[in-house]
């Protein structure tokens, strides 16, 4: 049994290392599939393994950088990464993030940081979940209307079409984004990424959870391109974050490498799974992930208002996140296997 426990040289704790690999695989699959880094999933997982929280964020960001690099390379081969759009949005993200981080320091000075940040997070996740399921419902409505008229719905039709209003803004310079397949004012993605970066800076997260739906609903990227382009940004911010957190002495590199072994392979599985699942399938699964994240944060907030339930709610919150991560990564893995079997059977049939 000693073989399964490893001493972490920086933090000095002994960790069950297969648990790190399993956590890495689950987070890698979900990250490669949805285009997010997954900090909200990793922290409870590391908590369960007894990992010191002082190193949790830096270790997570370090492994996320490697995992996102692998996913971006794979999504790039599929034509899912709009590099021009990613670089344009990076400018807004960096500026917004720094302003958000400064606002956090202001909240700290007035002593309200945890409360404000958690309620803001809950509000934001509620909005994102509503946006996703409202979009799905509207598209289904369009499908029914098309069927009633004896027609097939346009494959590229979407429920929510807010991006069309944003594309009408003609402030120069205008830019064409090849992979995303539209032309718009450069200020639109800069402004959207500024807002998502600002929120990420306040919430202390990577931003994939916010940026992916923003790319779909406000910029108008097809789902797969939103996933790939978001991962490109997560990769860059992850590398920067890995460097800066490690320089501050907050990364347990051995743990990051062990997680990365699982995550790099999981990310390939998640990325390839996007070949076999339609865009709206990805959106619905994303909506479920957002609901799971929101539930876990509400559980962490309740002890403020109800006495004597803190320990129970903390455990329930961790369990909720782990159940959501396990179920989603299993679902994605099974879909990938089914799609792979079909593809291989078709290839053998042709041969």
């Amino acid at each position, binding site marked *: 049994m000693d073989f399964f426990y490893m001493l972490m040289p920086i933090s000095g704790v002994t960790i069950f290392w297969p648990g790190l690999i399993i956590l890495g695989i689950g987070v890698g699959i979900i990250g490669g599939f949805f285009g997010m880094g997954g900090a909200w999933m990793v922290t409870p997982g590391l908590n369960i393994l007894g990992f010191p929280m002082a190193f949790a964020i830096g270790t997570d960001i370090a492994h996320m950088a490697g995992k996102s*690099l692998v996913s971006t390379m794979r999504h790039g081969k599929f034509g899912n990464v709009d590099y021009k759009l990613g670089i344009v949005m990076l400018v807004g993200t960096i500026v917004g993030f720094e302003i958000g981080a*400064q606002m956090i320091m202001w909240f700290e000075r007035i002593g309200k940081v945890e409360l404000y940040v958690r309620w803001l997070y809950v509000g934001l996740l509620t909005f994102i979940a509503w946006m996703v399921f409202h979009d799905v419902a509207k598209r289904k409505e369009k499908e029914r209307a098309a069927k009633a008229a004896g027609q097939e719905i346009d494959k590229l039709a979407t429920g929510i079409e807010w991006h069309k209003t944003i594309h009408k803004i003609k402030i120069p310079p205008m830019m064409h984004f090849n992979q995303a397949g539209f032309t718009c004012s450069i200020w639109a993605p800069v402004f959207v990424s500024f807002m998502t970066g600002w929120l990420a800076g306040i919430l202390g997260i990577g931003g994939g959870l916010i940026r992916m739906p923003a790319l779909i609903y406000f910029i108008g990227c097809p789902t797969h391109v939103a996933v790939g382009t978001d991962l490109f940004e997560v990769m860059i911010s992850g590398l920067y974050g890995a460097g800066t957190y490690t320089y501050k002495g907050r990364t347990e590199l051995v743990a990051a*490498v062990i997680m990365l072994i699982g995550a790099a392979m999981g990310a390939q599985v998640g990325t390839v799974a996007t070949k076999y699942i339609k865009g709206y399938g990805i959106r619905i699964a994303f909506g479920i992930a957002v609901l799971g994240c929101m539930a876990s944060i509400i559980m962490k907030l309740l002890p403020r208002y109800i006495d004597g339930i803190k320990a129970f709610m903390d455990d329930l919150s961790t369990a909720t996140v782990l159940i959501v991560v396990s179920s989603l990564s299993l679902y994605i893995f099974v879909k990938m296997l089914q799609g792979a079997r079909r593809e291989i059977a078709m290839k053998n049939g042709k041969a």
Partner: protein
Amino acid sequence: MRKLFTCAVLGLMMLPQLAFAAGGGGSAVVIVADTRKTTGWEAWFANLYNDSHLYFALLTVVAIPIIGVVFGVAADFIMHHIGLDLKSRDLAEH
């Protein structure tokens, strides 16, 4: 127009410096790795961390992408060997 755009982008990238004028937080707690329990490569690792966070950060920034790519390529190889097309996908709807 292009020069104006470039200047605007560079100006935007300098904005964080203005934001920092609001003042940062206090200095961070320094963590020191306990090398008494470590031997071999673990001791070397912990000593590198204690001696220089800069070199440790450089090691992190170099090692993480390399390790990620190695294991990603390994997964690639397995999937390609199984017979999956890893270079293209059907044009998907939204």
